[in-house]
């Protein structure tokens, strides 16, 4: 499903990710663990092909990064749900439209969209906020919306980048539970975090990064 082969990524600043090799299967749950600046977000960006390696090859759904076409990138992303570290919510539309967006892009019928969105909003405790705008939500609440949007279209892969950064313990536990549930329903999950408690509490395969290099790749 996701394969990194001898991947090197060099930024203009001189910072680089080196010799990344790993394979993630269809039904896996993988933590991407490392301190700030280790390269977690960079790896996620390569997975949804917003960033391409300078060397080596990233393969997603068996499509290689070196020969992927622009159109295919759109298709790949439609099968990936993504919780961005900075949410990337659309400030000029309400929570409902934000969550509905992936479904609208897929061309679902309005009433189908409505029932799915409402169901998901209930699940994430956002039902009463559907008509509000992102700036009317606290950071933690925005993070919830971002997660709801990521999973609304039942993606094959779910990428989450520090999804609990702005959440209190209780909400964070709720969100990680929700992500585990998504995984249980058959979705491959890559979960970037710098909090060592998470892999400790809910153990799973953990790829540990330190300044751009993988130092451990096993269950913690």
């Amino acid at each position, binding site marked *: 499903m996701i394969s990194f082969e001898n991947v090197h990524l060099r930024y203009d600043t001189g910072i680089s990710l080196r010799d990344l090799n790993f394979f993630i299967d269809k039904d896996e749950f993988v933590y991407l663990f490392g301190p700030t600046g280790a390269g977690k977000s960079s790896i996620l960006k390569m997975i*949804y092909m*917003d960033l391409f390696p300078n060397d080596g090859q990233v393969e997603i759904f068996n499509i290689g990064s070196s020969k992927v076409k*622009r*159109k295919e990138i*759109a*298709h*790949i*992303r*439609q*099968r*990936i749900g*993504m919780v*961005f570290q900075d949410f*990337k*919510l*659309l*400030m*000029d*539309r309400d929570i409902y439209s934000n969550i509905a*967006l*992936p479904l*609208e*892009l897929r*061309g*679902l*019928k*309005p009433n189908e969209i409505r029932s799915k969105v409402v169901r998901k909003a209930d699940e994430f405790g956002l039902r009463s906020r559907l008509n509000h705008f992102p700036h009317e939500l606290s950071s933690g609440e925005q993070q919830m919306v971002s997660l709801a*949007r990521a999973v609304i279209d039942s993606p094959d892969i779910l990428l989450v980048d520090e999804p609990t950064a702005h959440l209190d313990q209780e909400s964070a536990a709720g969100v990680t539970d929700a992500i585990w549930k998504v995984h249980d329903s058959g979705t491959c999950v890559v979960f970037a975090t710098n909090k060592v408690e998470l892999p400790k509490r809910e153990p799973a395969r953990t790829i540990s990064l330190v300044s751009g290099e993988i130092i451990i790749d096993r269950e913690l």
Partner: protein
Amino acid sequence: MKLGYIINEGVAGIRRSKMPFMNSVFSVTIALVLVGVGVLFVDNGLKYIGDLQADYDLEIFMQNDASSEEIQELATIISEYPGVIRMDYLSKQDAADLYSAEFGENLLTLLGENPLPSSLRVTFEENYRSSVYIQAFLQSMKQFETIDDVLFQKDLFNRIQVIMQTIYTIAAAAIFLVILVTVFLTANNLRLMILARYEFIEAIRLLGASDFMIKAPFFLEGGILGFLGGTFAVLIIVGLEQALAAFNVINLPVRILDYPEVILGTLLFGISLSALGVLKAVRRMLRFVA
């Protein structure tokens, strides 16, 4: 089904960014109004001066003793001469009346008789109005004995010709400039409008929208924008014409309402200008974010 998304999104885009959208609409309106007013200005100006020139083309004075059959005969010949578009007959009486009207003195009571000759005023079609052509015409008139004199104000004629050409040239240059400029300004405005949607484009691209799905709503939005801009432009031009007429400043001989194809052209120009301008801006933005 995706058509639903495109239409929804295109219309919603307008609602969500009313200010930049209306900015762009006005920009298109202004572009089209400037072009339209420019065209009407030149058209009307030329028509005025053309009319003036037409009036002064050529006057043929008959011998005082020419019989009405002779005049009739000559009139037929002249009116069949190639390029002659109009011919007016002024009888001796007409001439005397004109004189009275102009100078306030009655010639007949003054002199007891009418010394003024009858005359034919000849107007040439625009394409034939060159002084060489008219001189050839004069040459061929020499054979008629019933003609006493011919008044062709060659000097004035040429002068008007120069004015017309000058106005043509400057106005054409100015209009061309204005079109260039307004198209540029409008394109700019559309680009800034799209720039303001940077976050949106960036976000839905990351959510897996194909280029087509990103562009299509904007294209639609651009089309609506252009249609509105074009409609406003036509309304404003008509309004200006009405205002000029109402204040009796001048009675325009050429009006936009008489030319449905101009109205249609304005709309189509507005629509394509906007839709393509928006498309180009989005394409550039996509190249940038990719």
